[in-house]
């Protein structure tokens, strides 16, 4: 058929091109306007061309043959639904909104949406903005950010595994740029005579009766672990920014097929600040938090009471008291009174 020739000709253009009448005429498949109109209407009937409106002018878009074939087999109501879903493009459309637009009964809508889904024409996604709404959009489309969320989200939920990995990668990158790893022996000046000098000083200090002037003498602090490298902040580094880190993450292609915008990166970095891995230097720059060698909490939570699950029930009298406390007994390695 000659109409297929027109379709093939159009298919040579880049995907998603819209064709106006002048474009189709210039392809010189049809001999005159009348024939062209016939061909177009033929293709439209077979759903190979999708009629559109642009500035009041009619134009068309190509549909892949397989989809067109499926569309041919649809019942009218299904087709109507399909059209509305198609119109919504990547934003998707909510089933209730569909019902309102099409004026169909709810069971019909549900039934046809199911059948469309079964035919691989549309897909349902959870909206991030409104978690309890199912949004429908065409199968071959990727849901927009509004619906699916940024690169960190998957099917409406945060992709924890992905976030963890991204956090590690970014954390490492920031650490490289803002910190320097120093070997244990980085400044290996502690020689024997220094030890002697300290000892000598100690003798001196003790020997001199008027120790007020020398006090308080701090004890010499030995390096924590000589072989253990440790991190220190660089002096005057170029602090990484949201933009530079976004660029870095895109360049290593950690997120396949997804690009990270600055706003996405900011979200991740702010989360890392809350997490305690990074700290903010200025509005857009970050650096690593130096983790203390040993996490020290406070006196309250180190005692049994601070972590006690029955702390609020504990009183002076009754089944739970300081005397009957099992946690105190465990901590002090003594025995407690038996509760009665």
């Amino acid at each position: 058929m000659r109409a297929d020739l027109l379709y093939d000709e159009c298919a040579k253009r880049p995907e998603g091109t819209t064709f106006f009448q002048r474009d189709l005429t210039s392809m010189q498949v049809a001999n005159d306007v009348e024939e062209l109109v016939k061909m177009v209407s033929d293709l439209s009937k077979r759903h190979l061309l999708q009629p559109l409106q642009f500035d009041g002018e009619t134009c068309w878009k190509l549909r892949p043959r397989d989809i067109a074939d499926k569309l041919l087999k649809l019942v009218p109501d299904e087709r109507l639904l399909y059209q509305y879903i198609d119109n919504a493009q990547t934003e998707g459309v909510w089933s209730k909104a569909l019902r309102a637009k099409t004026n169909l009964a709810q069971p019909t809508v549900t039934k046809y949406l199911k059948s469309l889904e079964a035919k691989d024409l549309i897909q349902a996604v959870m909206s991030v903005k409104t978690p309890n709404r199912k949004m429908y959009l065409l199968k071959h489309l990727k849901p927009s950010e509004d619906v699916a969320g940024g690169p960190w989200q998957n099917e409406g939920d945060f992709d924890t595994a992905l976030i963890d990995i991204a956090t590690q990668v970014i954390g490492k990158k920031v650490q490289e740029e803002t910190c320097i790893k120093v070997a244990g022996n980085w400044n290996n000046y502690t020689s024997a005579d220094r030890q002697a000098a300290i000892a000598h000083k100690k003798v001196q200090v003790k020997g001199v009766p008027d120790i007020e002037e020398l006090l308080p003498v701090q004890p010499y602090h030995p390096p924590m672990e000589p072989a253990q490298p440790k991190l220190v902040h660089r002096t005057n580094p170029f602090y990484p920014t949201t933009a530079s880190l976004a660029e870095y993450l895109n360049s290593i292609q950690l997120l396949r097929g997804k690009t990270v915008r600055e706003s996405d990166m900011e979200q991740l970095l702010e989360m890392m600040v809350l997490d305690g891995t990074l700290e903010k230097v200025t509005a857009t720059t970050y650096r690593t938090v130096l983790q203390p060698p040993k996490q020290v909490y406070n006196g309250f939570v180190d005692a049994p009471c601070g972590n006690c699950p029955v702390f609020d029930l504990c009183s002076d009298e009754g089944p739970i008291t300081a005397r009957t406390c099992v946690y105190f007994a465990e901590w002090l390695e003594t025995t407690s009174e038996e509760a009665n």
Partner: protein
Amino acid sequence: MSYTQRETPILVELCTFLVEDMYGELASRVFSVLARFGRQRRAEISKASYLNSNQISLGLVILTQQHLVFHSPSTEPVVFYDIDWQQSYALVRHAKIAHFVEERFDKKTANVVSNLLTLGHSSVADLREAYFASYKGEEGAVNGTKVNGSVNGVNGNGDTSKTNGTHREQDEETLGSPDELYAIIQTLMEHGWVIQVAEAQYLSAEDMHNVARQQALNDRWGGAVPTGIKDKDMLAHLIRENKRRMRDAWLEVPQFSSRKRKADDFDYGSNKRTKLNGGGQYGSTGGSESSAEDDLVIRVNPEKAAVAMRNEYLVSLVEQRISYSTARLYEIMLRSLEKNIPRCFEEYPDPPPLNVEDQPQHEPNLEHVVNAKDVAQRAKILNIDICNGLDPNAIARIVKNTTVGKDGVLSPAVDPSSLNFHERLELVEAHFKLLEDHPFRFVVWQARGQYRVDFDVMAKTLIQQEIENTVLARKSNIGMKLIRALKKKGKLDERQLCNTMMASPNDIRTIVNDLTVQGFVQTQEVPKVDRREAKLSLHLIWYDVQRAREKLLHDTYKGQVRILQRIAFERKKIQELLSKANRTDVAGNETKYLKQSELDDLKKWKEVQEKLLLQLSREDDLVAVLRDYCGPLLTA
């Protein structure tokens, strides 16, 4: 339910425990009556307790001597008594204060301070008398001047283990001459550790306010109460000013007449001793030979301990967060400021002006400025490794002839003691840069070579940090993240919270619930329509620092009470053994008279007690952070 039957407020319980531990049962009975019923007269105390008049007098004398109770001004016809909660809680800090003083001065000074703490307050003459009346040992002599014999708790308490511990080294802490004592007292007063006793210290907040108000009225309006709005503002301002003036007067150091004292020295021998022997009542000396300051009545400044505790806390924080050497330099810096800081925050501040333009942009306190030069100088004396904790590249830039190899190894190595002044100064400033860059803003750059410490700003961060710490220890990272997210963003609904924390609602819900139950986080329901329907309401989660702070403070008090109760319980368990070990013939000869199992039990008890007391004092550190470093936080 009557008030007496309700659950005792936790601070009452804690302080009663402390008083009982330190000053025995009688004092604590009177104390607990006052604590439970509040401000009252003597007659009411005797009605509420089963004590006779004599016993109540005795109890009140102890409490008054120790500054644990307020009483209304002596000009009033009837005297009301009320509890000084700050001072009562401060009993837990006695050992700490002595320790701080020893660290900053020496053992002799610490001994004087711990004796002053035991005495509550004392005139200088009495103190001298106690030290030099007999040479048997200062502690026994000082005990002799005590108001009554019921003071038995201190030694058994262990709270003063630090002070007791110092007694062994008699040589280092025995005062040589009265002159030395005077010098020590003068130094302590100059540094603000010891202050004068004044009657206003016995005024409760309400009485103090009335006195200050009356004074303002008399001074300006001739006793009449002004009516205009402007005048009322003026009055409020004058009251605050009077309060501040009253309080600052205590800190004044009188002119010590050192020359005169030297002259007195010669006849310090026997006649003095006979004359004043047994004279325990303070202020009763006044002999012709006594020095001018003998009449001076002094006590330990209760607010100074918090200042020292704040410094220690900040230093330990720097050590954890930045590096050991930076912490040492910071310590030098804070210590040098300490002398000028009598208290952590102004209790009677003037309110900020109402219109926004007049409000000062957080006026920096110039008393909190330190020269980097001085710190560098001091670091040299203390032999601190000022290279440690810095970027090797920075050191190579500062120190000549040194390069950085791979792995950041310096070649040749830099010995910090061999550096010249200029290099040292630059290294110290590099450390200060680290302090300044830290989100806590440990120091603020003031001018070239000068750095300032903004304690007030930091105090809020510290409270937040301790709350986070507590949550972190209980609930792992996600709880802390939640608190921080809410702190940063304010009230959030669940979805916004998930977005900020980048976590799924299911992970967050349990944590929100737990934290709500613990009282760190609040939830709020705002209906969108006039029916209250769950679906049509906004469910907000929010966090208020002040609330969380109060809750944690309350919990910490409770934790302290539990520790004291546990100590009492552990002691009771081996009461028999303890009384045996304390018998005069057994004490000192334990190995001879006690069985091996008994010795083991005794050792175990000591360990347990030490562990519990250490924890008590660490919980006190937390109390200080939450309560003592800044006033109520009005805005979250």
